[in-house]
């Protein structure tokens, strides 16, 4: 009898232990409830030059960002909440940019911009000090890396990115001796130096650089100087409207091999086409988006852009802040950020970390990986301009 009681006790004890163990396991495996998003709307400030000399560029950057917000909201928002891009005008004035950034760092999770370089230099340090990510998606790595890890670059290093483009152009069009026009602004002289490396790799000779400032009004003297060196190829790295004038001046002095004129990416702007018109036909331009791609997402973007811009093709920078907004969406959703003001510091950090090494980001036109804030495997393209439109010539990677 006693033996039976002891047996029963043992069984009960064993069952109790089993019950406790199962309970512990079940409690441990119970899915944690997702943190609740506290904002009613995700507000993303965009420090942009909406007025001033580059207002026309600021306009389409803003357009791209708002287009992304529109699409995201149509599809249900970010973590179920709508997103709004708030344009903050800095008018290309650093003294305005710093005040606007100072206000933004009080509340924003992440900021788009600033645009352009003078405002970046003045205002981005404020974001760095407050550990807030700013997405300067229109400037070179050489500017953006100054503010790492609170910034990411949209472009790989100039010295890696540009030489293959110049090399392929020189090789494909049989260019042997090149003169380069270089606008004296920001990263352009550095880009011009990178072109020269590409020319060397192609076995072409760089005859010289002709520098010019923003206040040059006529280009006869510069073009004559260039032609006097007897080049068979020309690279132009300067303001879009002035690039167009240089092309026109070259043509008026008998230049006929239009494919032996290479325009750089920063010249690919509405001002190039409105100033140059049909005189640009046949010139080659390099850039980072392929406007002839045929995907539903891109077609929708292109159609919407052309509707709002009198049929003009979207400039390549117009997609940058579009992608930036989507990147923010992904970062928020992957990290479970709530928008709780009390957790601002830690959530900013989560977003920044998510972006710095984001893998397989689905951009509007291609996917890419970020590696410590630097994009990898982004393509470059050579296009030929014909009647105001770019026709793809070649895709170049690495």
């Amino acid at each position: 009898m006693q033996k039976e009681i002891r047996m029963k006790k043992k069984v009960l004890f064993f069952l109790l232990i089993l019950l406790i163990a199962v309970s512990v396991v079940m409690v441990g495996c119970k899915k944690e409830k997702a943190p609740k998003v506290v904002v009613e709307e995700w507000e993303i400030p965009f420090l942009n030059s909406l007025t001033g000399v580059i207002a026309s560029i600021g306009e389409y950057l803003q357009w791209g960002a708002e287009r992304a917000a529109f699409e995201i909201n149509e599809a249900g928002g970010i973590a179920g909440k709508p997103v709004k891009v708030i344009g903050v005008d800095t008018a290309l004035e650093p003294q305005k940019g710093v005040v606007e950034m100072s206000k933004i760092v009080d509340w924003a999770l992440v900021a788009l911009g600033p645009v352009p370089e003078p405002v970046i230099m003045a205002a981005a340090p404020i974001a760095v000090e407050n550990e807030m990510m700013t997405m300067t998606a229109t400037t070179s790595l050489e500017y953006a890396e100054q503010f790492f890890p609170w910034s990411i670059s949209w472009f790989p290093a100039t010295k890696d990115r540009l030489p293959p483009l110049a090399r392929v152009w020189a090789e494909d069009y049989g260019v042997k001796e090149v003169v380069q026009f270089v606008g004296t602004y920001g990263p352009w002289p550095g880009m011009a130096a990178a072109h020269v490396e590409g020319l060397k790799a192609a076995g072409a000779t760089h005859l010289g650089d002709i520098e010019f400032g923003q206040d040059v009004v006529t280009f006869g003297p510069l073009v004559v100087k260039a032609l006097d060196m007897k080049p068979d190829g020309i690279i132009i790295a300067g303001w879009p409207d002035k690039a167009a004038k240089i092309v026109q001046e070259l043509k008026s002095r008998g230049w006929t091999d239009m494919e032996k004129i290479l325009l750089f990416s920063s010249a690919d702007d509405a001002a190039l086409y409105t100033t140059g018109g049909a005189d640009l036909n046949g010139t080659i331009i390099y850039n980072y988006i392929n406007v002839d791609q045929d995907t539903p997402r891109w077609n929708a973007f292109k159609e919407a852009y052309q509707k709002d811009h009198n049929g003009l093709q979207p400039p390549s920078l117009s997609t940058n802040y579009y992608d930036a907004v989507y990147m923010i969406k992904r970062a928020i959703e992957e990290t479970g950020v709530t928008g709780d003001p009390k957790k601002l510091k830690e959530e900013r950090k989560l977003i920044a970390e998510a972006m710095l090494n984001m893998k397989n980001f689905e951009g509007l036109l291609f996917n890419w990986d970020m590696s410590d804030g630097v994009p990898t495997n982004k393509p470059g393209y050579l296009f030929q301009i014909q009647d105001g439109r770019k026709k793809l010539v070649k895709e170049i990677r690495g």
Partner: protein
Amino acid sequence: MQTFIAQVINGLSLGSIYVLLATGFNLLLLVAMIIHFAYPQVVVFSMYIAWVVLRYTGNSIVLAVLAAILSSVLLNLISAPLFQQVMKNREEVDINTTMVLSLGIGMIITDVLSHGFNKGLPIAFPSKLIGETPILRVGLISLQGGQVASLAVGVLAVSGIFLLLYKTRPGRAFRAIAEDPNGARLVGIPLLRTGFESYALSGVLGGLIAVLLAMLLGYSSPGLGEQVAHKVLAVSIIAGLGNLVGGLVVGLALGILEALVQGYISGSWSNAIAFVVMLLVMLFKPRGLFGIKL
């Protein structure tokens, strides 16, 4: 040698821009005692008006010219009372105040052009206005119709205005009103009508200059006026304020100097070198190379 000749021709072309603008600037000074620092911006505004008319009239050059002239005249007439008001307490040309006033006018014009026309983008004029092919091309030397027209008209404008102001009765009346309105009234010159005519004359010249610049440059942008304003002022000062012939000579000389600097030294240093040369001239000849003619 061919390169040098080509650069000199380029210089004359560039210089004709300065001559045209300096002539209009000096005319306003002579007939109204106004230092209109923003005169280039007024001309650029007229270029934009001409462009708009060209767009909507199927490139009618006659209408574009008339529109440019009308807009320039209107701008002059609107700004005239402002200048007269700030100057009424001074007996001589109030350089500083009129300069600052014209700075304000220039700021407004530039910003209106940035906002209200072509989304702030540069504008391009039709190729038939500029001339589709050069009238002369020998190696590097190239001469467009617009270049010849602007230089020729520049010289003619200087000669014509000089003759008008110094050899005709209406011209003497304009100068009399500018120098001494009370004295002019005493000798029977009708102030209102003559004043209106003088502003209208400078407006007509401004409109013509706008069209010539359109032919010469083939494009315009909101910032174009500001880009040349400093040099136009410098040309007028170095020549001697109000000195039309001096403005012609100095304008062309500056254009040639800039072209040679860009061609043989560096494009990015051309402004700095041009201003240094002008500065040196001014230090030795503060009243201008050809003397003030006010």
